[in-house]
């Protein structure tokens, strides 16, 4: 009897233990979110975290290939495509393709240029959708972030449109739809850019400027609007927006010392990107590290500027003196706008995106096109005066419109070289690329003025078509 009793009791206990395992509730496999992730709804549950999401975009701009200023950036690649920037070492074949205007659709720089831009656009779209769904972010913060984010989207599309032409217009995070999206027309893209910038303008109108020039404000939007309208040949609007920026003389001015232009939060800066965004501990800009000559082993440096560009600058031009360097070992000229190649302390320079000098040049061009030649000369001379070279009002006040427009283009090259591919985009929008580039690249074809859509994109999205000529 005893045996039976004990075995029974034991087996009952054990079976119960087991049954409790078997039937244990299904909630057991519920796991907590990992502590390195924040679910999207939580990101937009407070002003503070929502602002962090915007800061995330600013940070990532310094890590996104197209905007970071390193070899894969618009600054370098479009610089190489134009007649300003050249490779020191022609063994870098992927880069050489940009310089020779023979970009292969497989080119890795071209691919990251494209994909990094769309990644930034995704971040913007995700933020906008998060704000829209959120009920907890205060209206003031929500509006401000929307304004800033839409600026970034417009800014990114500006470069995609001007480098590639017709590209897909992605304005939400629905990947199923965006994986099979077709390219939009140039017209639609321009409309989207203008709409976004319009929203930015209205939402940021009463927001005070922050001390750091890395944050978008209403004048950043106006500065870009001025450029966009210039590209669209809406001369009046281009003039109007640039005038509004120039009128902010308390905020923005042209430093007389050329060495101060690219400093962090310089008086001239309308928008800059901080190198702290990389999170690597390095505080120099990528432009500084890629354009300056390696002091120890000059031959390991990457980029030089063309002799043609240097010879367009007279020897007394402050830009020739302060923004162009010469290396004896290599016997080459290099861009010396940024002074710091390598630093780890507090950042001294920021990566410049929009600055006042461009606004003067935009207005000069807009005025010249509206036949306000005198107004144009005044603006152009602002730039010449700072460069310390002869003023047009003194040397040739009676210049005709066409000559003046040519002079403005020349001045744009001298002022904006090695910055954000201005030269390449100028030559294309003005239809002068072939005339100017053919002498240095006899194989240049009209279709080379648009970069190829990366072949990987075409593989993955059958609804995209390659640009002509590739």
């Amino acid at each position, binding site marked *: 009897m005893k*045996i039976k009793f*004990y*075995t029974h009791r*034991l*087996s009952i206990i*054990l*079976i119960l*233990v*087991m049954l409790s*395992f078997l039937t244990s509730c*299904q909630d*057991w*496999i519920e*796991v907590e*979110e*990992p502590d*390195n*992730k*924040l679910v*999207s709804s939580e990101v937009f549950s407070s002003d503070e*975290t929502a602002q*962090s*999401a915007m*800061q*995330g975009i600013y*940070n*990532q701009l310094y*890590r996104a290939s197209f905007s970071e200023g390193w070899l894969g950036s618009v600054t370098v690649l479009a610089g190489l495509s134009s007649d300003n920037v050249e490779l020191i070492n*022609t*063994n870098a*074949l992927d880069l*050489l393709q940009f310089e020779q205007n*023979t970009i292969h659709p497989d080119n890795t720089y071209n*691919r990251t240029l494209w994909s990094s831009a*769309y*990644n930034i656009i*995704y971040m913007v*779209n*995700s933020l906008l959708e998060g704000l829209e769904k959120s009920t907890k972010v205060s209206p003031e913060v929500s509006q401000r972030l929307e304004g800033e984010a839409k600026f970034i989207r417009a800014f990114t599309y500006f470069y995609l449109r001007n480098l590639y032409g017709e590209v*897909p217009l*992605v304005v939400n*995070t629905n*990947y199923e739809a*965006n*994986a099979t999206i077709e390219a939009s027309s140039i017209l639609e893209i321009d409309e989207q850019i203008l709409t976004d910038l319009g929203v930015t303008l209205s939402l940021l109108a009463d927001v005070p400027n922050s001390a750091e020039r890395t944050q978008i404000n209403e004048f950043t939007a106006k500065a870009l609007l001025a450029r966009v309208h210039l590209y669209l040949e809406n001369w009046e609007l281009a003039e109007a927006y640039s005038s509004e920026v120039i009128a902010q003389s308390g905020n923005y001015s042209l430093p007389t010392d050329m060495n101060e232009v690219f400093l962090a939060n310089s008086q001239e800066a309308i928008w800059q990107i901080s190198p702290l965004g*990389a*999170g*690597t*501990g390095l505080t120099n800009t990528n432009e500084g590290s890629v354009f300056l000559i390696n002091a*120890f*082993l000059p*031959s*390991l440096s990457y980029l030089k500027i063309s002799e043609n560009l240097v010879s367009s600058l007279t020897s007394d031009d402050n830009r020739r003196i302060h923004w162009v360097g010469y290396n004896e070992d290599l016997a080459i000229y290099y861009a010396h706008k940024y002074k710091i190649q*390598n630093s*780890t302390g507090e950042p001294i320079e920021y990566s410049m995106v929009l600055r006042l000098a461009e606004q003067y040049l935009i207005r000069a061009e807009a005025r010249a096109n509206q036949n306000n030649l005198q107004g144009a000369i005044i603006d152009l001379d602002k730039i010449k005066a700072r460069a310390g070279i002869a003023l047009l009002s003194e040397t040739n006040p009676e210049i005709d419109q066409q000559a003046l427009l040519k002079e403005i283009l020349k001045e744009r090259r001298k002022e904006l070289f090695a910055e954000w591919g201005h030269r390449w985009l100028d030559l294309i929008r003005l239809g002068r690329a072939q005339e100017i580039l053919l002498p240095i690249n006899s194989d240049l074809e009209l279709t080379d003025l648009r970069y190829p859509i990366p072949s*990987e*994109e075409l*593989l*993955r*999205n059958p609804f995209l078509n390659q640009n002509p000529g590739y």
Partner: protein
Amino acid sequence: MKFLFKQALSCSIFLLLVMLSLTSYGQQTIRGTVSNTEQVLIPGVNITIKNKLKGTTTNFEGQYQIQAQAQDTLVFTYLGYSPQAIPVGNQTQINIVLQEEENSLGDLVINAGYYRVRDRERTGNIAKVTAEEIELQPLVSPLQALQGRMAGVEISANTATPGGAPIIRIRGQNSLRKEGNYPLYIIDGVPINSVPVESNTSLGFVGVDPLSTMNLSNIKSIEVLKDADATAIYGSRGANGVILITTKTGENQKGVQARIYSGVSIIPKKLDLLNTNQYLALRKQAFINDGVEPDEFNAYDLLIWDQNRETDWQDYFLGGTANITDVNISAQGGSDQTHFRLNGAFHKQGTIYPVDLNYQKFTGGFNLNHHTKDNKFQLNLAINYGIDQNELIGDGIDFLSNAFKLPPNAPNLYLEDGSLNWTDWGEAGLAHPLEGVFNSSTIEARNLITNLNLSYKILEGLELKTNLGFTDYKSDELVKMPKRSYNPAGMPLHRSLSTDSQRQTWIAEPQLNYTKQWDKLSIQALIGSTIQENQYKNFSVEGQNYVAEALIGNLGAAEKLLNAQARNIDYRYQAVFSRIGLNWDKKYYLNLTARRDGSSRFAAANRFANFGAIGAAWIFTEEAFFTKRLNWLSFGKIRGSYGTTGNDQIPDYGYLDAYEATPGPGGLYPVGLANPKYTWEKNKKAEIALQLGFLKDKLDVGISAYRNRSSNQLVGYPLPSTTGFNNVQANLPATVENSGWEIEVSSENINNNKVRWETSFNISFPRNELIRYPGLEQSSYANIYKEGHPLNIRFLYEYEGVNPETGYYSVKDQNGDEIYDQEDKTIIQDLTREYFGGINNTISYQGISLQFLFQFVKQQGSFSDLFNAGFPQNQIAEVTHNSSSYAQVSQTLDAFLAYANVTESNFVIEDASFIRMKTINLSYSLPVKWIQSLNLNQVKFFITGQNLFTITDYKGMDPETLQGGTDFSNLRTFTGGLQLNF
């Protein structure tokens, strides 16, 4: 757990006492010995009294003692021997001679994971390798020892660096995702995460083998479960097969074993490359052909570098000798009911590279098993601990590519003082090829695997078992990056990269087993449940600007800590499983298995799924019809199985739409696309097999045909960047089919008193096909896969020979649009193995034993490197010797583009089949009479060779590692050693 153990123990002792007191009337003590036909006493023989819950086992001297009544019958059973039943009567001394069972095939007991089954009776496909076959191989990875030994199991070493994870595929690639194809690893009942451990070292690409801390000599057997019948009980984790590793226990043996071996490894092959004269001649020719004036930028090797220097860079980088030392000591012993085994081992391996780095492994193991006298309660405890210390070069230094590509007249890499020669390389405008060479990395991994298995027979035929397991894998990795590793021009800082990861798993699996025999029907049933939790933690941080090189790694001495990243991942898993095995008259077998699984890797709505399988077997030689007519056929079985398994090998939390911190300060950003809809990959497996034994089972043949279909493919679905990212986790409506034949033959060629010669042979004919993918043409996969073709394909251009006008390679522009793109890649090259297998021979003659294994593979591969003659890198000598097959020597961009195209064409495809002498082992044991006086049981000398030679037409380094042709993963190794048993 403690509670359970104590209670069970005290209860069983109590039961025993009660039983003894109840049955003492009429008892007599019976003593005796049990031996085999060769008069060797057998320890551990089970002796039970028929129809009573009572029994004992023989001790180490083969003696036993038991209380029984005159009317009782004693039953003697021992694995591999025919059971005997002896009525007690009035005997007090019963000495038994057990007969070995003739049918060795049938009595091999196979571990099927949750249950054991006799090989003769199994309904599923399970392959087994035992210690004897693998333990002497000088390998770090236990799985690599299986190469060539099992049908259907494809293993490639992947890297020649010790500690790297091999690639293992059981019956082909099921998942479209490379990382979704790992089998399930189970060590003594505890699942081990089979995903390679991440690393920042040079092993980063292949990952660190999570089994590298195992001691190969401590493994008793490895079983591989292949078909539905065997794997369905593992449910969602069984799709890619299951590998069961069982460590040695102390049962049935006693004594101390010490073994030591040491040896060397060298590179198995060198490529025939150009010497300086040939190289420079080609380079000069290139400029002449191109009509280009050499200058210091495009012809530094002609104008700046010494024209008479000659370095064999293969010798320089890969010509070293790696030393191997291995020491292994184990002790086992115990009493009749309790056995233990202790094991300690040390393994050290150097490198062939010109750096002083070592791999070291220390392992220790303890195994304890105990059963009560009545065999009602059983306990088995296994603790295995391993420390693995791997010194590696930092990531980014590519000795391989330097060995093959550096021009033979390239300048010195080092200066006389041992620092890197920046100036000479800098002058040529090149980055130093060894930039980073002083970076050292150390991975220190500690792995604890413990398992406690308790079982208690509640009633006759009813047994409660609980399996409790805990594993703790910790890896500390430190990459030191001193200044001198980097070009001073970049103003480098002393830096370090620390990565600590930890994987912890605990598992509890209670289960009930029931066995019952009704007349001719016997039933074995099992029901159980699993709860499991895996925690993964990872922390990494970069230390920057240390004051001195000696302080690198001490984070306190770093001026700045950067990029700190912490992650912890929690994975929970829950399941109920059951199995019913039926057998009628030992002729007809039916096996049903089922599992319901829940996994935290899926969003709440998709967490649970059911899996199951049915298996059946018919031993037709048991039928009177066959026994009468086919007496040459000693054994014949037909079996088949069908069932479903799943695959949940996807990253955790993939369904969460989440943000993470940006590397820059104060920011948050989305790091990927989220898809809450995805669910399990399903894998349906079917198999039919025939097993035959001829000539009293001296020749055994097994033939299986299988077909596995994986559907609902869960992949990181590649997306265009317009979506913001490159991929998203999603289920695809695609079906991948793996089918094939496997043949295994084993024969006992000679077996007499002096000579024994056994041969085993296996061959697999795998077939892999993407059979269905509706909408493939519109999907992102349109140009990666093709319906009706295997997954492992490449789309290639059609090679058209050298263009007579330009002298460059040309490939066919299929659509005539003058652009070379995917549309022109019309050749579909299958890179799946056509067949593969191995043949193993064991010959023993008195004390001498010889074992050798050949591995063979039939496959196509590519050699797509080292023939762009004219460019400033070394080439295969064939470009000079046989220049008519290659393009005109040139260094232009167009030549480069033509070369890039031809490496994507069928020009580079060649037969990469091979036969390799994988391993050979010769041992000699001294005759017992010589060593008896020394109190030794065995003295054995042995020598072992690995990868001694390879027969192949393949031009590259190693046909097992087909990455362009310059990679290799198998070193040639020779070792010799001594084993002593006390």
